[in-house]
């Protein structure tokens, strides 16, 4: 087996600004038929996510056997609303026309339940969960396709749709438990995150990672022992995959979130239990998240005491370019070839 590219996202640093989302949108999903696609999403957790309730939509495997999955509608993805721009800007209606969505009033959007979260004041909580395709080691999409139209690159593990072979059957869309495959109704093919392979091939990190103002995302090969991915995933074991029980072996990993402490009924700090319930984080990241949190707490305490912590230095990412596992070239150096 060849090497595998991976991403680590530090959820303690994500501020939900959607710069990653827009970086991806502007680069890859501006063509006709792609209006509703967000290969990168950032949702508030706990929340229903994008597409709505994707965590309850099946797919993936259970004990190695494929699990049937749903085909989310465009509306469940949030769709691409159309606005009455013409009316407002050129309709000569002055203050009588207001900007609004054309047609039926939407009841869902790609970031509909932003900042709602869960819990009761003053102990309410939420965090942001950015998601891209997990470029799985055991990709349910690839295995579901009857036409062998989905390929996993032997050299870097990036999973892509071969649009020449794809006939738009959408078995992949059903099979992906993360619901990160999109159907393009204009081209009649399935499309998905390509891990910015045309950038990667020229030594430039993914747009979502490079544009992130919070230094949330690390990029690189999983087996590069001197780079952050290996250190966070294998050495420190503080980065864990989302929903490992789907059995697709994701290659995107998350540093779990730690919220400020709880308050008790007297308004005093109560450190007897965390603000974000551990069982909730286990439901997302599996039991290894407990160990990961413990390690993070230990290392944070060390750093607070003035001791050296390799892990904290790594997560702070003092040197921005070191986050990218060698894919640190300036995007301005890319030679784009139009096909």
């Amino acid at each position: 087996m060849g090497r595998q590219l991976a991403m680590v996202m530090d959820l303690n640093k994500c501020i939900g600004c959607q710069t990653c989302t827009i970086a991806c949108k502007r680069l890859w999903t501006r063509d006709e038929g792609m209006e509703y696609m967000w290969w990168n999403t950032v949702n508030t957790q706990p929340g229903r996510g994008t597409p709505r309730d994707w965590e309850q939509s099946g797919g993936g495997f259970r004990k190695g056997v494929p699990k049937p999955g749903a085909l989310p509608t465009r509306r469940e993805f949030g769709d691409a609303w159309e606005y009455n721009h013409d009316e407002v800007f050129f309709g000569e209606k002055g203050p009588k026309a207001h900007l609004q969505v054309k047609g039926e009033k939407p009841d869902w959007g790609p970031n509909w339940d932003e900042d709602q979260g869960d819990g009761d004041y003053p102990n309410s909580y939420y965090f942001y969960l950015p998601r891209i395709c997990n470029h799985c080691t055991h990709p349910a999409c690839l295995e579901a396709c009857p036409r062998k139209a989905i390929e996993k690159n032997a050299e870097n593990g990036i999973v892509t749709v071969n649009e020449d072979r794809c006939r738009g059957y959408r078995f992949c869309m059903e099979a992906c438990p993360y619901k990160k495959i999109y159907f393009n109704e204009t081209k009649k093919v399935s499309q998905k995150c390509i891990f910015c392979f045309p950038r990667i091939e020229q030594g430039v990190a993914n747009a979502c990672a490079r544009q992130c103002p919070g230094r949330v995302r690390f990029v690189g090969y999983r087996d590069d022992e001197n780079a952050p991915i290996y250190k966070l995933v294998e050495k420190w074991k503080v980065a864990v995959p989302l929903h490992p029980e789907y059995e697709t072996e994701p290659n995107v990993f998350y540093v779990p979130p730690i919220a400020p402490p709880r308050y008790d009924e007297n308004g005093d700090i109560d450190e007897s239990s965390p603000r974000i319930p551990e069982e909730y984080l286990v439901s997302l990241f599996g039991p290894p998240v407990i160990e990961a949190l413990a390690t993070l707490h230990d290392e944070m305490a060390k750093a607070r005491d003035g001791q050296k912590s390799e892990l904290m230095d790594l997560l702070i990412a003092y040197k921005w370019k070191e986050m990218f596992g060698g894919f640190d070239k300036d995007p301005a150096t890319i030679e784009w070839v139009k096909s």
Partner: protein
Amino acid sequence: MQVDFVGDAGIDVLLDADHRVWGQHPTTSVPLLGTPVGMQPTAAIQVAWMNKKIGTVDHVDVAALHNGREIAFRLEWSAATESSDVSDNNSFPDAAAIALPVSPDAPIITMGAPGQPVNAWYWRADEPQGARQLSAEGLGTSLTFDQRVIQGRGSWKQGRWRVVLARALRVESESPVAELIPGTATGFGVAIWDGANGERGGIKAFSGNWLPLELQAASGERNA
């Protein structure tokens, strides 16, 4: 099934599914079966369709005519709803196809085999004025190699699809194409997809083994 010779019918006549010439020649009712779930090419498809009906269309009325230059098949079947758009992720179009053997021993059940291609003419309701030509050498291997040679016309009226698929009798192609020669016999198969039932790819109703197809000699006399 006999393909009658209609020397004075031009291609425009043959492509008109409602033209009276079709009513002047026999139609064969071909029973269809759902493709077996165990033969679906991936485990995910097998699991997803384990307890679902595959192949809701149980028969298709087929007629075929040739004019010495072109051959046309007219397929007619009942479809309560017209599924002709792909405007949402969970909508699939109705579709129909004719399969023809390229080599005489090509197995139709597996859509050909390595070295034994099957040639298919494929029409889909979201592109009703056209058709694709495909070849396959086994399940999951179908490849569209041409979108011009096969002519297709389909329309849905009062709960029924009428689709015509036509091609020149003689075509020169580097891809595997079935030979169709007046005065000789070959085989054919039919498949129908019910979009409303989520049928696509190998999830379809099909006619089983090759059915006989006899092309009347261009003189109009019966084959010897």
